[in-house]
Structure formats: structure tokens, C-alpha cells
């Protein structure tokens, strides 16, 4: 002891005592030691007691915190529903502030089986109001002694009045938020939907939940929907509606099994409209999970066909190895073992770059890619984001199907759009980069400014290459397969693609996925339009053809015609003078 302690009055053993007693003495001393109360230990032991109490109180506090944030089971369900907030969700509005999704209050009927006196009577009365309820199951559930069950969610005011009038003890109502999509189908694939508990299940709704909203509610910090700022999408409801209408017409006219469309702002990467048919009503999303209702722009992966040639041509021009006047031998098909690459409309001559593009020459583009080499090709596709999964706000996305072994054959076929399948949105992102001056901008579904988009953009091709691409797309509309989309006054440029579909593991003749990319206006593009038709059939009007130039291109033309004024593209009655100065200077084919 360092400090004197009056209480420690135990005598110290006298030194001569211990040795004389021997073994027995030691035992006695040990026993006495056992019975001695060591008052001097008091302080340490009080410390020990304080320590034990600290643990007890900490355990108690910990348990209280656990109860506070506990989730699970009936209690939580009850708590979540009892608090009238339910789960409030922010409104979703389009770029002009039009409501796309909002919360309305509705009532749900619950029962407390523990307090129900006569389950049989209660069942009989309730099923009289809700004729669609399974009487036996309800009776079983009411006969338990649980504290809380749902009888029916989201009932009408009339049903509520009727149940109220029944006056069954142990049956009550809880106000709940019900998610409503006033525009129904219009933007279904972008919005996704929320379930009966107002949790986002798909689309932007699910993305909203991922922003920490649920956690805030979990600790009770959010009370009303008014606390939540609306989510502003990049989508324009009017364009969305017009495009859906045109696609429905096209799908019907060409008897396609599916159709999809996209309008992308090439300067900001904003998705202005996205439609995928068939679609579903988010107000009643029973069909939403069906396979044919997937979002074909984001989730479907397709071999894009000839539209991908734009990438190959851009790669060739951007490599500095070729210029706009370079020529490629397309006289004879390319032979790879048993595979032979030939042109759809063979010119059987030497073609320059614009000709390769306008005549959509498979041989020409394959030669471009082969001369640059596999590595250069793969590197360019990786740079333009074609080999990796594209992630946007929408939780639905898909990884591209990239060949595991990449040989010369792969490079040759991928050059004209076969052998590499990607989400159309991904291809649209790259195509936008080809025409917007060379910037790769990740698409977004949220409203943003050009400055914000530029901040994260990467340059993938030069300004000059971009001009060449715009020039060739415009040329294609004037002289090539995109003619059917060329709406007077809007200076549209475009590229068609008709990819043979794989049926039972083989490319099937005449079963096509037709795609069309259009830019408007081609001299200074603002928007990229993409139209996809899955298995369109020939009609009398198309003279027996079912390639993109006969269905996807005119559909896109109709869409542009209907939406151009909404998209703020002013019509011009005279074509622009000197739209492509560099091309004229270089004397590119078609400028004379």
C-alpha cells in the first residue's frame, strides 16, 4: 500500500513465527488467510463493481438502441404502416415539370385477430364487402391470436365507408401512400414502379430508394412527402408520348414482335425519350416482369448490324492511317475459312470511305478494321464504351456479349456489326460521340446542363473525324439507305442497320432486327434518334423489303416530324450553306 490506511489493522506475521510451525503451521496460516477479510482490497473491488455496472448499463443502452433501430417481423410492419407516412416517395417530374409519378393517400384495412371476438362473423361481413377475398384463408388468419394482419390494402373510399359501417371490433383502417402514375404507359420503362408498400421495385423508382431515402425513414427522420424534393428527369413527356404513338403504329404496320425508340441529347447525354414496346402500366404492373416487356434499350443486348459501321469508319478516319478519300477494294468477297463476307448490295468495285458508308459495304468496313489490326479495333471499342456494362441511373442494365476469343474473323464481322452484342443505349452513346464533336458522355435519365455533362466527358475522336461522320450520315440520307427518314427542313442524317437474328443458333435469312440512327440537324447535331424494330415483316408499301431503310428509317422520320418542334429544332427551308467546310476542302466524294 502506498498510502497509509487506518482500516488495515491486520498485524504482519512476526518473522520468527512461520518457520517454527512447519507444514501444519503453513496450513493453519493459509486457512486463516482464507478467512481473513482483506479490507485493503476494498477500493480495487469497488472498482470491479463499478466496471460490472458499466457493462450492465452499456448492455442496457445497447439493447435500447437495438430496439430503436430494430427491423423485422410483425412489429416493424405494424410500425411502418401505423405511422401514417407509410413510405413517402418524392414526386417524379419530367424536364418541363410535368408530374410523372406522385403519391396519393389511400386507406388499407387491417385486423387485430387478438381482439376479434367472432372470427366467423367478421369473415362473413368482410367478404361481403370485399368479394374477391378468400373467405377460408381470411377466417384462418382471423382465428389466430396475432396482433396485426392486413385484410386488404388500398381500398376505395366507398369500401372504407362500408367496412366502417359494419363496426367490427378489432378491424381498422390505416392511411397509406399509394403511388400513382398519371400518364400510365407513357414512360413505364424509365419510371419503373413501386410496390404496395411504396418501395421502388424497378426503374428510377428503385434508383430513388438507393439514394438513402429508406434509411432516413428507417430512423424516422422523414415524415411527409413534402419534405422530399421532386426528382427531375431528363425525359420530355410530350416527346415520350409522341414517340410511343409512332412506334405503336410502326409495330402494328410492320407486324414487328417488338419496337423500341430513344431520343438522346448528344450534347448533354440526357435521355429525352425512351420507349420499349410491349410495355406495361406502372399503376398495375402485373405484366412488368414478363420477358417480352424488358427494356430493350437498356437491358436487351443486340447485334446492332450496319449501324455499327459508323464506329468502324470513324475509327479508320481517326487512326490517321486513312483519310476521307482513302479507297478500299470491295470487288470480291472476303474469305475466312468456310466463312465468306460479302456485300448486301454489292458494288463490286473499289470504294472510297463515303461510298463504303453510304453503300454500307461489309467488305469495305471489314478491310478497314483488319488493316488497323485486332488490338487497335478492340482498343477503340473499349474507349467508346462498347465492351463493358453501361451503368446509368436505371438499375436495369446488361453486359455486352463480347467474344471470348477475338480473332481476325471477329474483327472483320464486328466491323460491320455482327459478333458483338450490346445494349442499344450503349451503341447510342458511342454514336452520339461520333457526331457531337467527339465527346463520349455517359447517358443520364436526370436533367443536367451541358456544362455538367462536359465535366465527365472524355474525348474519343477528333473534331475533324466527327465532322466527317456527320457529313457521311447526311450523305446517307441524301443518297443512301436513310433517304426515307429525310424530313425536309430538319437536315437529318442517319445510318441504317439490318442485322440477321440468330434463330436456333444460326443466322436466319430474312429474320431481321432493324435499327436506325438519325441525327438532327446533321450540320450541328442536337439530338440522336434511335429506332429498333424486332422482326418487321415486308408490306405491300415496302415492295417486299423488310430491311431498316424500309421500316426503321421511315418510322424515325415520322418521329422526327412529330417531335422536332417539341425538341426545339427550328425547320430550315434552305439547306445550310457550307455545312461541312472541311469535307469540301478535302474534296470528299459527294461534295461536288
Amino acid at each position: 500500500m502506498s498510502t497509509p490506511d487506518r482500516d488495515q489493522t491486520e498485524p504482519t506475521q512476526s518473522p520468527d513465527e512461520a518457520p517454527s510451525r512447519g507444514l501444519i503451521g503453513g496450513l493453519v496460516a493459509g486457512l486463516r488467510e482464507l478467512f481473513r477479510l482483506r479490507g485493503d482490497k476494498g477500493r480495487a473491488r469497488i472498482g470491479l463493481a463499478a466496471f460490472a455496472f458499466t457493462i450492465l448499463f452499456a448492455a442496457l443502452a445497447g439493447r435500447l438502441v437495438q430496439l430503436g433501430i430494430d427491423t423485422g417481423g410483425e412489429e416493424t410492419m405494424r410500425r411502418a404502416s401505423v405511422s401514417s407516412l407509410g413510405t413517402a416517395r418524392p414526386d417524379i417530374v419530367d424536364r418541363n415539370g410535368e408530374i410523372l409519378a406522385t403519391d396519393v393517400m389511400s386507406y388499407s384495412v387491417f385486423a387485430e385477430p387478438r381482439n376479434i371476438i367472432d372470427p366467423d362473423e367478421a369473415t362473413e361481413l368482410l367478404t361481403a364487402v370485399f368479394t374477391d377475398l378468400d373467405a377460408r384463408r381470411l377466417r384462418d388468419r382471423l382465428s389466430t391470436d396475432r396482433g396485426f394482419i392486413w385484410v386488404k390494402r388500398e381500398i376505395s373510399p366507398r369500401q372504407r365507408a362500408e367496412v366502417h359501417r359494419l363496426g367490427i371490433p378489432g378491424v381498422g383502417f390505416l392511411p397509406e401512400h399509394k403511388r400513382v402514375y398519371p400518364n400510365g404507359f407513357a414512360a413505364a420503362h424509365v419510371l419503373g414502379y413501386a410496390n404496395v408498400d411504396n418501395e421502388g421495385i424497378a426503374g428510377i423508382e428503385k434508383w430513388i430508394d438507393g439514394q438513402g431515402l429508406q434509411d432516413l425513414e428507417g430512423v424516422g427522420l422523414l415524415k411527409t412527402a413534402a419534405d422530399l424534393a421532386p426528382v427531375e428527369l431528363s425525359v420530355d413527356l410530350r416527346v415520350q408520348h409522341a414517340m410511343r404513338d409512332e412506334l405503336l403504329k410502326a409495330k402494328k404496320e410492320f407486324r414487328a414482335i417488338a419496337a423500341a425508340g430513344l431520343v438522346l441529347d448528344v450534347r448533354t447525354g440526357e435521355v429525352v425519350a425512351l420507349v420499349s414496346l410491349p410495355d406495361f402500366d406502372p399503376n398495375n404492373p402485373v405484366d412488368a416482369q414478363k420477358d417480352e416487356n424488358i427494356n430493350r434499350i437498356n437491358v436487351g443486348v443486340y447485334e446492332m448490324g450496319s449501324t455499327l459501321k459508323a464506329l468502324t469508319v470513324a475509327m479508320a478516319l481517326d487512326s490517321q492511317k486513312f483519310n476521307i478519300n482513302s479507297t478500299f477494294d470491295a470487288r470480291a468477297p472476303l474469305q475466312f475459312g468456310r466463312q465468306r463476307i460479302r456485300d448486301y448490295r454489292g458494288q463490286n468495285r473499289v470504294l472510297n470511305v463515303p461510298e463504303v458508308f453510304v453503300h454500307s459495304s461489309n467488305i469495305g468496313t471489314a478491310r478497314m478494321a483488319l488493316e488497323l489490326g485486332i488490338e487497335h479495333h478492340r482498343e477503340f471499342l473499349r474507349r467508346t464504351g462498347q465492351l463493358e456494362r453501361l451503368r446509368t441511373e436505371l438499375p436495369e442494365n446488361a453486359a455486352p456479349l463480347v467474344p471470348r476469343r477475338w480473332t481476325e474473323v471477329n474483327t472483320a464481322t464486328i466491323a460491320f456489326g455482327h459478333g458483338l452484342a450490346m445494349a442499344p443505349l450503349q451503341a447510342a452513346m458511342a454514336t452520339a460521340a461520333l457526331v457531337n464533336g467527339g465527346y463520349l458522355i455517359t447517358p443520364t435519365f436526370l436533367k443536367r446542363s451541358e456544362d455538367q455533362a462536359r465535366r465527365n466527358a472524355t474525348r474519343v475522336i477528333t473534331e475533324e473525324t466527327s465532322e466527317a461522320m456527320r457529313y457521311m450520315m447526311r450523305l446517307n440520307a441524301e443518297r443512301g439507305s436513310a433517304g426515307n427518314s429525310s424530313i425536309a427542313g430538319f437536315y437529318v442524317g442517319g445510318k441504317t442497320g439490318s442485322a440477321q437474328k440468330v434463330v436456333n443458333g444460326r443466322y436466319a435469312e430474312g429474320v431481321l432486327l432493324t435499327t436506325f440512327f438519325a441525327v438532327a440537324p446533321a450540320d450541328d447535331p442536337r439530338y440522336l434518334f434511335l429506332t429498333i424494330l424486332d422482326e418487321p415483316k415486308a408490306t405491300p408499301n415496302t415492295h417486299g423489303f423488310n430491311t431498316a431503310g424500309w421500316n426503321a428509317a421511315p418510322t424515325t422520320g415520322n418521329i422526327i416530324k412529330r417531335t422536332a418542334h417539341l425538341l426545339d429544332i427550328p425547320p430550315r427551308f434552305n439547306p445550310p450553306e457550307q455545312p461541312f467546310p472541311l469535307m469540301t476542302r478535302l474534296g470528299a466524294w459527294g461534295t461536288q
Partner: protein
Amino acid sequence: MVSRAQRSLVGDWWWTIDRSLLAALCGLMVIGLVMLMGGGPPVASRIGLSTFHFVERQALFLLPALLLLVIISFLDARLIRRLALFVYCAGMVLVVAAIQYGPEIKGAHRWISLMGVSIQPSEFVKPAFVILTAWAFSEAARRPDLPAVWIAFALLPLTITPLILQPDFGQTMLITAVWAGMFFIAGLHWFWVMGLGGIGVIGIIGAYNLLPHVRERITRFLDSDAGDTFQVDMALESFARGGWLGRGPGEGTVKRVLPDAHTDFIFAVTAEEFGIAVCLVIVVIYAFIVLRGLLLAGRNEDAFSRLAVSGLLLMFGLQATINMMVNVNLLPAKGMTLPFISYGGSSLFSLALAAGFLIALTRKRPRARLQPRAYVPRPAGA
């Protein structure tokens, strides 16, 4: 304000007591009254009393109890020992009388009517028991030649036998635990600590096997499907419904079906109406009292004060933690009230008595005053 310059009885008292401890105790009393406004009315209306019957009674008792606390805190150690002896003897007589003559309430004879006032004498026995035990243990350590240690040993069975006969399992356990804790602090050899710990375990196993209602409670705690877990279920529902911030004063609904909402389960009612955040504050106040008190006890030079203060805090702290742990389902259901918050006149006065002892014994005293009569230790065995 009381001046430091002049030495007066009150001045001495004010500047030597631990004012933070007193403030925390008074705070608890006030909080208790507020909480009782939540827990009291449903029970009162259930047994047909006026709505605020319990609140009014508790408020009525609060001032006399506070007065008792303050008066007792003026006493010195010697007077406290004498008062404790008197209270203990009177209490034990009444406990025995209650068994014999008291009315049977919920299967136990714990209450006795004295001049028209119904009291629970075992409540008053508890603090007195702690003081007497502390005295016996400290004397035993100081003067091993006196039979003080045997008194300490005899006190336990003497006290708990009537309690077992009542029967009052909760109080018996509490008193035994406090006694064992004080014995430990008094400097019990670790050999005995382990040995008595073993006996304690055997005792619990024995109680489990021999006393049916103990067995039932433990089984019920361990297996939530076995038997009736209504109280605990309701308590947990209170916490779930209250959430962090509670449903607001008077807005609780579980309390209407929760038995003993004004006593054993007032903590759960508090959670429902005032929220878990307030529950945490209450836990912090209890923790403060216990830990602050133990700190003061550790600093105390006097063995008796040290033991007595530790014993009182053990009793206070154990009772509080056990009650709260039952409420949050960390322990099986047990009849234990929450000090100063649960309703109960006897309990309140008993706690005031204990708190008075506590404040008195934690007063800063000059060393010379500790031992009024000079005592020269004799070498033992000489």
C-alpha cells in the same frame, strides 16, 4: 445561497454533500412523477380509481420523502447505524406480522395495515439491512476478535427467511445479491468468491427445480413459445411503437393492456410515450448515480462508509438494471420496481431512506471526525 464563510449546520451540510448526486436523485423523482402520468391512469381506470389516483398519491408522498431524505442526510455515521438498527428491527417485526396477519394479495403476504396506512415493511428492511451488514463487515475487518463477522453471516438468513415465507422471490434475490456483493467488497478471499458463486448457481438450479413459478418464468424467458409471454410481448411492442421519439404523452395504447404499467413495466410505458431517447436518458441518470457513488465510495477513507455506500448503490443499481432489463427482455420477468420512477409509497420512502443514507455517508468529512472516539488498534493475537 448558503455562505461558505459562516459555519452553520445547513452551510456545513450544503458544502460537504455531493450535490451532483443529490441533483440526480431529485431529477429522478421528478422524472418519475412525469412518467407516472403515463403509466398510472390506465391502471387506475382498470381498477376503478380516479384517473390520476396514482399520480396524486405519488405527488403527495414526494415532498415528505424528500424531507426524509434531507433530514437523514444530516446524520453522522453513528446515528445512521442506530437508526438502521431501529428500522431493521421494527421492519422485521412488521414483516413477520404481515405474514401472519397481512391480507393476501396476488398470492403473497407482503402488506400490512398500520394505523390505516397500508405499507410493505420489506421495503424498509432493505436499506437498514445494508447499513447493518456494512457495519458488521467493517467491524469484522477491523477487529477480528469481535464476533462481528458472525453477525454479518447471521443477518442474511435472518432477513431472507421471512421474505421467502411471504413469498417474495425478487426481494430475496436482491438482498442476497447485495449481501454477497458487500461481502466481496469487504475483502472476501477469492476462494470463497468462487465457492459462493458456485452455491449461487446451485441455488438458482435448486429454485428452478423446486419452485414451480420460478421454473415457469425461466422457461418462458428462454423459450418464447412456451406458455404466456404476454407481459414481455406487450413491453416489446411498447418499444417498437414508441420508436426513438415516442408517440407523445398520453398517446400510448399498449399501456392499457400492459399489467403493472405503473410499477414493474413503467419503463416500457415511458418508451411508448416518450420514446427510446428518453429511456436512454434515464439509463444514463441511473448509471451516473451508481458510478458517481461508487467513485465516492472508493475515495472514502472510512471502511464502514465505503461498504455501506457500495451496498446501497449495489441495491439501487441492481434493482434499476434488473427492472429495465426485464422491460427490454434481457432478463426473465421478475417483480422488481424501478427506483424513484415506479409508483409505490413504501418503496418511495424506503428509497428516500436509502438515498438519505447515501448522501450522508458520501459527505466530505475531515479525517478526525471519522472516528469520534480515539481507537488504538491492538495487534491481533497478542
